[in-house]
């Protein structure tokens, strides 16, 4: 149990450092990347290239193991069902991302700066997720 928590801490640490090194924590770089019809800055495309390279190569290899090191089993989503929820959700996320240049990871890591933009964005993102989860739980109780 303790190993699971400590390893999650290490993953979070490494992940945030990766975000910072990559440029994802600089909203103007994100907007530059999304400005594909203007003065496009394609550099952040390489974040995905690097990430997918490591994860794509490693994933099949890790999944050969009977179970993870510190948990009883692998819990990986298996649904292949495409629905409206997925598309509407991704679209809303894309709009918000395009307005502020923050996605959830960089926004949360940026909270340590106590900067006005990440604080406002982050607090409203967190509150919205809180409300979403409340509604979700209520729906589950009803059904």
């Amino acid at each position, binding site marked *: 149990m303790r190993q699971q928590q400590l390893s999650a801490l290490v993953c*979070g640490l490494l992940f945030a450092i990766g975000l910072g090194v990559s440029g994802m924590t600089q909203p103007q770089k994100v907007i530059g990347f999304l400005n594909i019809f203007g003065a496009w800055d394609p550099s952040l495309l390489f974040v995905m290239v690097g990430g997918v390279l490591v994860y794509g190569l490693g994933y099949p290899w890790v999944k050969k193991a009977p179970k993870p090191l510190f948990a009883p089993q692998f819990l990986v989503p298996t649904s292949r069902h495409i629905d409206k929820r997925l598309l509407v*959700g991704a679209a809303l996320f894309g709009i918000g991302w395009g307005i502020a240049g923050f996605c959830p990871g960089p926004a949360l*890591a940026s909270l340590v700066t106590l900067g006005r933009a990440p604080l406002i964005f982050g607090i409203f993102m967190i509150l919205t997720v809180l409300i*979403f989860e409340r509604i979700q739980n209520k729906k589950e109780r009803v059904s």
Partner: protein
Amino acid sequence: METFISSFGKAFLGGLLIGLSALLMLVFNGRILGVSGILGGVLNSNSRSELWRYFFFAGMLLGGVVLRFTLPNAFENTLERSDFSLVIAGVLVGWGTRLGSGCTSGHGICGVSRLSPRSLLATVTFMLFGFATVWFFRKWGLI
């Protein structure tokens, strides 16, 4: 040109670190590293007992602190956004990522690497909406 190459290199290096942290999450805990999903879990009263999520965020904040001392410009933010637009963006990102079951990490890195059809479609969707949003706001001079 030199800064162009170095920003490509940093993006790639950061991407490798992000991929590595996501892969370690799978090796250790058998989970997908998706920030919006982990955030939803922390804020959902039904799954609060799973402490690893809190440790992941603690690690991210720790990573943020490390970045502040080692890469001072990691959190540079030169975008000028009104408080109101940051609120709207935070709400859209919070709601959208939960509705669409993922963000740039869970869908964009992990899901794309696994060739999950849901994640591939979500990633294309949030990218397109991000491009369209930046185009739209620039065209009307709103941001």
